C-alpha cells in the first residue's frame, strides 16, 4: 500500500514530500533510508477529516491527510486503543450524532426546567433568614430613592386595625422571618398593589385598601404575600436566574455574547412559568389560612377581580401581569374548601 505524506525530521522545519511503500509486514522506508514498521508508529487520533500525524520513535514524524488508508493500516498492523477510534465513530455516524442531539437537548431541558428550580429550592430553604434580611433592606432603600411610594394617607385607626390582624397572621408562622407591614401611597405609580420582600417586609398601598370591599379581602392579600415569604419565592428566583448563565458557559465552554443572550432565554421562560406557580402557591397559602380561621376566601377573589378592572382602567400593568389569569385564581379561591 502507498501512503502519501510529508516527512519532518523534528530537528528543523524542513519538509520532504514522500510516498511510502508499506509492505505486507507493515514495514516502510523513509526517504533518508531509515526503516520503520507500522507497529512502532504512534498515530494521532482521527478528528473529522483533519490530517493525521504519525510519530516515529526518533522524534521525526509524518503528516498525511489519507485518513481512510491510515485507519486501514492501523487495523491491519497496529490495533489502536479502542477509545480513540470509538470517538471518531460516534462523531461520524449520523445516527449517533442524532442520539447525541436528543440526549443533549433532553438533559439540558430537564436541568433547566426541573433540576435548577429544585436545586434552588433546596438551597433557598437552607439559607438562614438573615441573608434575606439584607436583600429586603436594599430593596426598601431603592424604593425610597426612586420615590415609587409616598407616605400613607390612611388614618392611624385604619392602620392599627389592619396591623392587629397582620400580627395574628404572622404570629402563626413558624419561620424566623421578622415580618413588618408598611403602608404606602402609590396613587401616581403602581396604584392598587401589594408586594413582599424576601426579608418579610410587606408593602401594601392605600389604593389597594380603598379598593377592598371587605376587610377580609385585605387580610387575604396579606396572607398571600406572607405565603411568598414563607415559601422563599424571591430567593428561589434569584438563585435560579443566576444559575443559568453558569450552566450555559460550563456546557459550551464559551463566555461570548451569544451564550450570554442564550442564557437569558431559559431565565425568561422559566421565570414566567415559575412566577405563575409561585402565585398559585401563595394563593393556596392564603386560602388555607383563611379557611383555618373560618374566613371566606372568595373575598380575596373579588378583590383580585376589582384590581384587574382597576388596572385595565388606568392602563397600569402591575401586580397582576406576573400573575396567573385572574379568572383561574378567583375560581381556585372559590373552590369547595376541603
Amino acid at each position: 500500500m502507498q501512503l502519501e505524506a510529508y516527512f519532518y525530521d523534528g530537528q528543523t522545519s524542513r519538509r520532504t514530500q514522500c510516498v511510502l511503500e508499506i509492505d505486507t509486514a507493515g514495514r516502510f522506508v523513509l526517504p533518508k533510508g531509515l526503516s520503520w514498521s507500522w507497529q512502532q508508529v504512534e498515530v494521532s487520533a482521527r478528528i473529522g477529516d483533519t490530517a493525521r500525524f504519525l510519530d516515529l520513535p526518533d522524534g521525526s514524524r509524518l503528516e498525511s491527510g489519507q485518513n481512510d488508508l491510515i485507519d486501514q493500516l492501523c487495523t491491519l498492523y497496529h490495533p489502536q486503543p479502542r477509545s480513540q477510534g470509538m470517538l471518531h465513530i460516534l462523531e461520524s455516524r449520523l445516527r449517533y450524532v442524532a442520539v447525541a442531539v436528543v440526549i443533549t437537548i433532553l438533559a439540558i431541558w430537564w436541568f433547566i426546567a426541573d433540576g435548577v428550580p429544585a436545586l434552588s429550592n433546596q438551597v433557598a430553604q437552607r439559607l438562614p433568614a438573615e441573608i434575606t434580611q439584607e436583600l429586603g433592606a436594599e430593596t426598601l432603600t431603592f424604593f425610597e430613592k426612586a420615590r415609587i411610594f409616598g407616605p400613607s394617607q390612611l388614618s392611624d385607626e385604619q392602620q392599627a386595625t389592619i396591623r392587629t390582624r397582620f400580627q395574628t397572621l404572622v404570629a402563626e408562622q413558624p419561620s424566623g422571618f421578622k415580618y413588618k407591614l408598611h403602608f404606602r401611597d402609590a396613587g401616581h405609580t403602581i396604584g392598587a398593589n401589594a408586594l413582599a420582600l424576601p426579608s418579610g417586609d410587606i408593602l401594601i398601598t392605600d389604593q389597594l385598601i380603598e379598593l377592598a370591599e371587605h376587610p377580609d379581602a385585605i387580610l387575604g392579600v396579606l396572607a398571600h404575600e406572607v405565603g411568598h415569604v414563607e415559601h422563599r419565592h424571591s430567593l428561589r428566583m434569584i438563585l435560579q436566574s443566576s444559575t443559568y448563565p453558569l450552566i450555559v458557559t460550563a456546557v459550551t465552554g464559551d463566555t461570548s455574547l451569544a451564550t450570554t443572550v442564550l442564557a437569558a432565554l431559559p431565565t425568561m421562560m422559566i421565570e414566567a412559568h415559575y412566577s405563575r406557580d409561585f402565585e398559585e402557591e401563595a394563593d393556596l397559602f392564603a386560602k388555607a389560612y383563611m379557611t383555618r380561621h373560618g374566613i371566606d376566601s372568595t373575598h380575596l377573589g373579588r378583590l383580585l377581580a376589582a384590581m384587574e378592572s382597576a388596572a385595565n382602567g388606568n392602563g397600569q400593568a402591575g401586580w397582576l401581569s406576573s400573575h396567573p389569569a385572574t379568572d383561574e385564581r378567583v375560581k381556585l379561591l372559590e373552590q369547595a374548601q376541603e
Partner: protein
Amino acid sequence: MTEPVDNHTTPTPMAAEPKPNPVDFQFHGKAGEFFRIWIVNICLTIITLGIYSAWAKVRTNQYFYGHTSLGDSRFEYTAQPMQILKGRIIAFGAFMLYQLIVSIMPILSLPILLAFALVMPWIIVRSMMFRHFNTRYRNIRLGFTGNYVDALIAYVALPVGSALTLGLLYPYAACRQQRWLVNNSRFGETPFSAQLKAGAFYSIYLAGLFLLISTGILFFMVEAAVPTMLPIIPLILMPFYYLVYAYIKVHVTNYTVNNARLGDHRFESRMKTLPYLWIFFSNVLAIVLTLGLATPWAMIRVARYRADCTTAQVAGDLDQFVQVQQDQQNALGEELGDVLDLEFGV
C-alpha cells in the same frame, strides 16, 4: 547555526532581503463536520458530569489547529486531555474553596482578590507556555519565554493605573500586553518580534472613543425626540457598541500582526471592521435563534475569516527553523485561565 536570527529586532534594509513570497493561511474546517464533533463533545460532557470536557477541549482544538494550514502544512495541537483535566480539577477546587471562604468569612474576600491579582500574571505566563508548547507546525514547537514581572506590569499594574487615570493609560496597557505576547513567542529557536508603538494604540482607541461618543450623542438625541422609544433604544444602539468593539479588535489585530516578524518572515492581516462586525452579529443572531445549535457554524466562520485575512510573507522558504529542547509544561496555568475566564491573545 544554533541562533539563526538573533539580532532581527531592528529591521534589516529591504534591499538586503529576497523578495518575499506570500503564503496564505487557510482554514479547511466545515460546519457540518464540526457540528458532529461538537454535539458529541457536549453530550459526553453531560453524561460524564463534566469530566469529558477536557477531552472535548482537546478534540476541539485539534480540529481547529488541524484544519489550519500554512503552505499546505497543518498546525497541530498536542496537549493531553489528562493534563487539562488535572488543571480543571485544581481550578475548580480553588474556585470552590474561594466560595466557601467568602461565604464563611466575607471579610476575607478583598485580601483574596488582591492575592489573586498577584497570582493572575503567573497563570497567564503558564497558560501561554502551555498553549505554545502544545502548538506544533512542521514538527517544530512554538515556545513562550515571558516572565512574571512583565506580565504583572502589563496585566495588573497598568490596568490598575488605567483605572486610576480614567482610562488614559488603557491603550498603553493594551500595547504592552501585545508586545509582551509577541516578543516572548518563539517558533523553535526563532523568536517572534514586533515593534509596537504606543502611539498607534492611542490612535486606534481614540477612534473607538470617538465612535462611542457619537453613539452616546445619538442615544440622547433619540431619547429627546421620541421618549416612548426609551425601552428599545438599547436594542437599537447595541449594534453601534459592537461596532466599537469590532473596530478596536480588528485594528489591534491588524497592527500587531502586520508588525510581527519571525526571522526574515513577515505577516499580513487584512481584517476589516464591517465584515467582522457582520460575522459577529449574524453569529449571535443564529446562535440565539437556533438555541445554540448554530454555535459550531459560528466558530467555523470566525476561524475561516481570520485565516482568509492572514498571509505570511515568506522570505525564501519555511525550511530553516530549528527545534529547541524544552521542558514539559503542565496544564495548570492554562486551565486556571480557562475556568476563571481570562481572555487574552494576539
